[in-house]
C-alpha cells in the first residue's frame, strides 16, 4: 500500500514538474535559448494569482486564463525587442541576457512584493480524493491535467497550425525555412511567447501548492533543466515524460535512500543521462 501511495505521489509531483518544464524545453529546443527568466515567470504568474485572489477573490483557475494572454504578450515582446537582436550570437550571450533580465525581474519583485513567503490559501480548500488507502490532493491533480492540456495544445499547434509548422521548420533548418518565406523573427517571438505563457499559466497552480517568494525562481529552473535533459530538448511530450520520470524517481529515491538524498538523486540522473543518452528519452539524436 505504501508503494502505491509513493507511486501516486511521484506521478502527481511529475505532473507539476511537467508544468514547470514544458515551456522551458520548447524555448531551448527551438530557439537554442536557455531562458533563465523561466523560473521567475512562474513566480510572477503565482503573484498574479495570489493578488487576484486576495484582493478580488478571483479563483486561481480563472487567473490561469488571465495569465495565458498576458504572458504570451510579455514573452512575444521580449523576444521581438531584445532577444532577437542577439539570437544569432553564441548561446552564452543569450543566456547572459536572460540572466540579467532575471536579476532585474526578481529584484523588481522584491521591491514590489517584499521577500516574505506567501501562499495562496483557498477557502474552502480544493481537498483530496481517496482511492482506497491512496490519497491524492486535487490541486496537484489539476496541475497534472493542466500540464497535459497545455502539452496537448502545444502539440496540436505545432503539428496542425500554419505557425506551428513554421516553428518546426525553423527548428529543423533556419536558413531553409527563411528561404521558403518563413518570417523567422516572428516565429521566434511566437515561440518565446508560448514558452512564457506556459510558465505564467503554471504559476497560479504552483502558488496553491508552494509558498512563493521573489527569489524562488531558481529552484524551479533547476528542476526544468533536469527534466529537459531527461525528456529531450524541444520535445513537448518529452517534457511531460521527463517530468513524470523525475517525480517517480524522486519519490522512490526518497523512500529508499531517505528524503535528504532526493535532490542528489535527481542531479545524478542528470549526469548519467548526459553521459549515456544526451539527446534524452524522446529527443532525436543529432538534433542539437
Amino acid at each position, binding site marked *: *500500500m*505504501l508503494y502505491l*501511495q*509513493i507511486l501516486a*505521489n*511521484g506521478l502527481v*509531483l511529475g505532473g507539476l514538474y511537467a508544468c514547470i518544464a514544458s515551456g522551458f524545453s520548447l524555448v531551448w529546443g527551438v530557439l537554442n535559448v536557455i531562458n533563465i527568466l523561466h523560473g521567475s515567470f512562474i513566480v510572477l504568474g503565482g503573484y498574479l494569482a495570489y493578488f487576484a485572489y486576495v484582493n478580488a477573490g478571483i479563483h486561481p483557475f480563472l487567473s490561469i486564463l488571465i495569465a495565458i494572454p498576458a504572458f504570451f504578450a510579455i514573452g512575444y515582446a521580449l523576444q521581438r525587442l531584445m532577444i532577437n537582436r542577439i539570437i544569432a550570437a553564441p548561446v552564452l550571450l543569450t543566456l547572459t541576457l536572460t540572466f540579467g533580465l532575471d536579476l532585474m525581474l526578481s529584484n523588481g519583485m*522584491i521591491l514590489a512584493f*517584499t*521577500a*516574505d*513567503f*506567501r*501562499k495562496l*490559501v483557498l*477557502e474552502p*480548500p480544493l481537498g*483530496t480524493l*481517496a482511492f482506497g488507502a491512496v*490519497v*491524492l*490532493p486535487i490541486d*496537484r491533480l489539476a496541475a497534472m491535467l493542466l500540464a497535459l492540456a497545455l502539452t496537448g495544445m502545444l502539440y496540436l499547434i505545432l503539428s496542425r497550425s500554419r505557425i506551428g509548422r513554421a516553428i518546426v521548420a525553423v527548428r529543423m533548418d533556419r536558413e531553409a525555412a527563411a528561404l521558403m518565406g518563413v518570417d523567422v523573427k516572428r516565429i521566434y517571438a511566437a515561440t518565446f511567447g508560448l514558452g512564457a505563457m506556459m510558465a505564467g499559466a503554471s504559476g497560479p497552480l504552483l502558488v496553491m*501548492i*508552494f*509558498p512563493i*517568494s521573489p*527569489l524562488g525562481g531558481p*529552484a524551479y529552473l533547476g*528542476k526544468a533543466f533536469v527534466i529537459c535533459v531527461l525528456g529531450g530538448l524541444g520535445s513537448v511530450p518529452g517534457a511531460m515524460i521527463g517530468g513524470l520520470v523525475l517525480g517517480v524517481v*524522486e*519519490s*522512490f529515491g*526518497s*523512500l529508499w535512500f*531517505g*528524503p*535528504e*538524498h*532526493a*535532490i*542528489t538523486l535527481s542531479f545524478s540522473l542528470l549526469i548519467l543521462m548526459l553521459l549515456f543518452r544526451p539527446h534524452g528519452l524522446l529527443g532525436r539524436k543529432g538534433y542539437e
Partner: protein
Amino acid sequence: MRNKRLLGAALLAGVIAAGAAAAQDVIRVGAPLPITGPLSPEAKKQQRGYDLWAEAANRSGGIKVGSKRMKVEIVYVDYQSNTPRAVQAAEKLITQDKVNFLFSPFGSGAAKAASSVSEKYQVPTIAATASSAQVYDQGYKYLFGTFTPNDTLTEPLSDIVVREAAGVKRVAILARNALFPLAIAQEMEKSAKKRGLNVVYFEKYSIGTLDHASALSQIKSQSPHWIFATGYTNDLILLRKQMADQRIDAPVVTMIAAPAYQEWIDGTGKLSQNVTSAAWWHPAVRYKGKDVFGSTEAYVKAFQAKYGALPDYAEGSASAAGAILQLAIEKAGSIERTKVRDALAAMNEMTFWGRVQFGANGQITSLEPPVFQIQKGKPTVIHPKSIRQGELQLGVSN
C-alpha cells in the same frame, strides 16, 4: 590653478579631520545580514530589531560611556544568504569599516563560521539567532548568544505533552538538514527517549526540497501520535500543506521555528490550528529591566508604534542584542573591547528580554523559553505558568 589645488587639498583634509572627530563620538556596530537571497525575510527581522534599538538608544541621548554620551550607528553588510560570504563580511566590517563591535550573521551555522573572525580580532560579538550548543563549544571568549540551548525548548514541550496527552507514545521527527533545525530535532529525540516515548521515524530533508510527500507517506504508515518537524517558514508551510494533502492527523504536531511568524500562519490558514511550537521569547512575557526599553510592555509598544505589528522572538532578540551591548558598555564605562567583553561575561541584569546571564561558553543560561500553540490563528502561550494564555489542545487534523 595651484592655489585652487591647495585649497582643494585643505578642504579635503578638513573633511577627513571632521569625519574622524565625528567617528570618535559614534559607536559603530557591524551587522552582516542575508539581506538578499532565500534568508532575506530573516534579515529583515534582524534589521527591524537592531534599528529599533539604535533609535531608542540615540533618542535617549546616546550610550553613556563614562562621563560622555555616544551615538550608535549600525553598519549593515549584505552577505547574500551565502555563509562563506558572511565570514568575509565580518572581516571586512572589522578591518575596513573599523566597527567597534559586531552582531553575528543569521542562524547557528553562519554565527559559528563568523565567530572565528571576531575571536581573531578580539571583537565582542553578540549572536541574536544562534542557539545550538555547537556554536559555543569552541572555547571562544568574545562570542555571546541571546538564545538558550535547544533542549530548553524541547524539554518543557515534552513535559507538557507527556503530562497532558497520556496516549502519546509514538513520535515521528522530520528535520531540515541544516545546523539549527537538525540540532533541535536531535534534542527532541533525546527528550522523547528520556521519557520512554518511542521514536518511530527520524529523517532529514535537504535544503531546497520542493516535495515532502514520500517522507510524509512513510510517517503516515507509522501512525505516530506526535509529529515533530523542523525548518524555516517556506519548508513548514509546504510540510503542513502536504500533511493535509495526505490526510495525516495526529494528536500533537509541533513545528519549529516558523509558527511564531505571522507569515507562517497566513501561509497555512486554518491548517495552523493546534500546531505547537516553542521559542525563546514571546511578546506576552512581562519583565521589567534596566535596559534602554525598560520593560517588555514598553518594548512591545515601541515596536508596534514603529512597525505596526507585534514583535516576534527573532525581532525581539535583535533588539535585545543591542540593549545588552549597551548595558555592557555603560557598565564598562568605556568602548575598549576587552573591558566590554569582561562586562558581558560578568553580566547579571534584568532586561525586557528576561534575565541576562551568560554561561562560561558565552551562551545565555537565564531564560525560560515559552511554549505556545496556534489557536484560532493566534499564538497562545501554554507555558510557563506565569504568562499562560490557554491550555494545550489536542488534535491536529485537516
